[in-house]
């Protein structure tokens, strides 16, 4: 029998997404027939650098710290229902993540769980740091002269599909495109060829719509009174229904909150998209300019008209280096004349940092007076007439290579308790290590020759 429809649900759209969102998706998929998958997308641009540092301290770690909480919640019901899991929870160590997954399965009493990994995205596995530093930069900081913490190419969907041919229940990858978590299963199920551009485009669009989890079901969308979303406390995560011809319906887990409408889908189509005629991946250049949407029942939207063109010859690589420290400190002023007191506090901090020789980039601003839309010099706030009475929060931030400077800036805010304007309270501060990234390009041939899928056994 030929496969008619593949169902692919999302359990997480970023590292930090709701731990229990995947379970209603699995329960819904369990009521469907045919090939069914659950994806977890948990990698940002900085994830691999952080994971590499963890792996350096303990070679068995470096997979996502979210692997255990996410998988623990769905592994048994997914295995029981025959729902396969494809996730980039492998981060910098898919092999270690696979061994951890097998350990969790054993603990949960799951018999015969099989796990595969995709390897080969780590350029430092077969290139020197000098060669990586010499690759052409398209975005971000200059890497030359800095110690490279991580350099990973975005692999496409082919190695994911290859891993699925091994027949395992779980596939863990490191760096692939987010859409590959969805396109990989579709290539595996439907056998789409490497030049079947329109179908690869439809599968990539499905991936783009599903990869951010609740962002297509009412999350990052609701604007009360304008775009209302029911039941956001139990937001249902999305499920894509994809046909062999590339037909696509976006819907969501049953018995959950949230909604799927043409408006939620439209916002997610354009999310992090630049030229809508050329959304570039290693598998296909996706063109959404001809895409139309049609209502297909409650919480069901049909997505039509994705077009595909040949992909670029080069792969994108995220290169990460140490980014120093970000120090942040905050203090609240409330009630009558609060803005005047907060502004005075800001002036005091600015003067002291200048006179004490802090030369690193500093921002001192008033949260509540338009800070989010402003710049480091607070140019916009000067042009506004915010009420003097209210509740305002002084915030100072510094980026520096010297942790002591970050501590010093925070301490200047703290000292306002006793030496600043009246009624300052609620001091909070943090100093966090930063990662700088650049996007560079690498020829695809040598990287793809390294990419491979293999099953991992305990």
């Amino acid at each position: 029998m030929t496969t008619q429809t593949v169902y692919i649900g999302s359990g997480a759209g970023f590292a930090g997404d709701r731990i229990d969102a995947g379970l209603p998706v699995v329960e819904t998929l369990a009521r469907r027939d045919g090939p069914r998958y659950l994806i977890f997308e948990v990698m940002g641009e900085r994830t691999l650098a952080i994971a590499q540092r963890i792996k350096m301290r303990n070679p068995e770690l470096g997979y996502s710290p979210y692997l255990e909480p996410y998988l623990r919640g769905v592994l048994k019901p997914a295995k029981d229902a025959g729902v396969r899991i494809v996730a980039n929870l492998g981060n910098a160590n898919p092999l270690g993540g696979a061994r951890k997954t097998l350990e969790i399965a054993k603990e949960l009493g799951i018999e015969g769980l099989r796990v595969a990994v995709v390897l080969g995205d780590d350029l430092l596995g077969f290139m020197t740091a000098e060669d990586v530093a010499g690759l052409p930069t398209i975005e971000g900081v200059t890497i030359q002269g800095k110690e490279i913490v991580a350099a990973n190419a975005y692999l496409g969907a082919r190695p994911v599909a290859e891993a699925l041919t091994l027949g395992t229940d779980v596939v863990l990858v490191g760096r692939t495109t987010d859409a590959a978590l969805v396109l990989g299963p579709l290539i595996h199920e439907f056998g789409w060829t490497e030049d079947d551009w329109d179908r690869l485009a439809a599968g990539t669009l499905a991936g783009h719509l599903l990869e951010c989890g609740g962002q297509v079901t009412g999350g990052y969308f609701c604007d009360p009174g304008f775009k209302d979303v029911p039941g956001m406390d139990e937001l249902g995560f999305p499920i894509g229904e994809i046909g062999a011809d590339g037909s696509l319906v976006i819907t969501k887990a049953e018995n959950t909150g949230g909604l799927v409408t043409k408006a939620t889908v439209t916002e997610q189509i354009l999310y992090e998209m630049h030229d809508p005629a050329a959304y570039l991946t290693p598998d296909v250049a996706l063109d959404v300019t001809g895409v139309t949407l049609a209502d297909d029942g409650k919480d069901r939207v049909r997505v039509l008209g994705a077009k595909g063109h040949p992909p670029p010859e080069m792969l994108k690589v995220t290169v990460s280096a140490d980014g120093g420290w970000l120090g942040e400190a905050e203090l609240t002023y409330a009630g009558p004349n609060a803005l005047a007191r907060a502004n005075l506090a800001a002036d005091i901090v600015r003067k002291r940092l200048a006179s004490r020789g802090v030369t690193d980039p500093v921002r001192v601003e008033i949260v509540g007076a338009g800070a989010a839309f402003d710049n480091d010099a607070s140019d916009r706030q000067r042009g506004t007439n915010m009420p003097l009475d209210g509740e305002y929060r002084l915030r100072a931030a510094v980026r520096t290579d010297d942790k002591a400077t970050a501590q010093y800036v925070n301490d200047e805010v703290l000292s306002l308790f006793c030496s600043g304007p009246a009624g300052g309270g609620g001091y909070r501060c943090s100093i966090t290590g930063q990662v700088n990234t650049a996007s560079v390009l690498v020829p695809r041939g040598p990287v793809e020759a390294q990419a491979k899928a293999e099953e991992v056994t305990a």
Partner: protein
Amino acid sequence: MTDTLTLPLHAVAHGRAGDKGNRSNISVVAYVPDAFAHLCEQVTEQKVLDLFRHKGATNVTRYVLPNLNALNFVIDDALEGGVNSALTQDLHGKTLSFLLLGEIEVTVPASCVPAGSRYLAD
């Protein structure tokens, strides 16, 4: 005569901000299909560039998606360096769709505002 109203873009459109490096993209989607032509005419690259210049924006490219009643603005250098170097709280510029929706005004027939909107009650 149809009543025309001058309102913040937020009355007639919704949108979402995303980031890549120091570049922000913000979609603007008409609630009512009839509003789309007015958005195309009035929400220009120049207006968006002027709105984000204090953040460092250097160029705006507007993509028009008539099938979706949507515009996509790609704003170069809008994020004060983005996650690599910005000092603002919102390193990804997630809040910035509402800067655009709140600050840019459009003049449209009242029929372009969704029924029941609080902008019609004002």
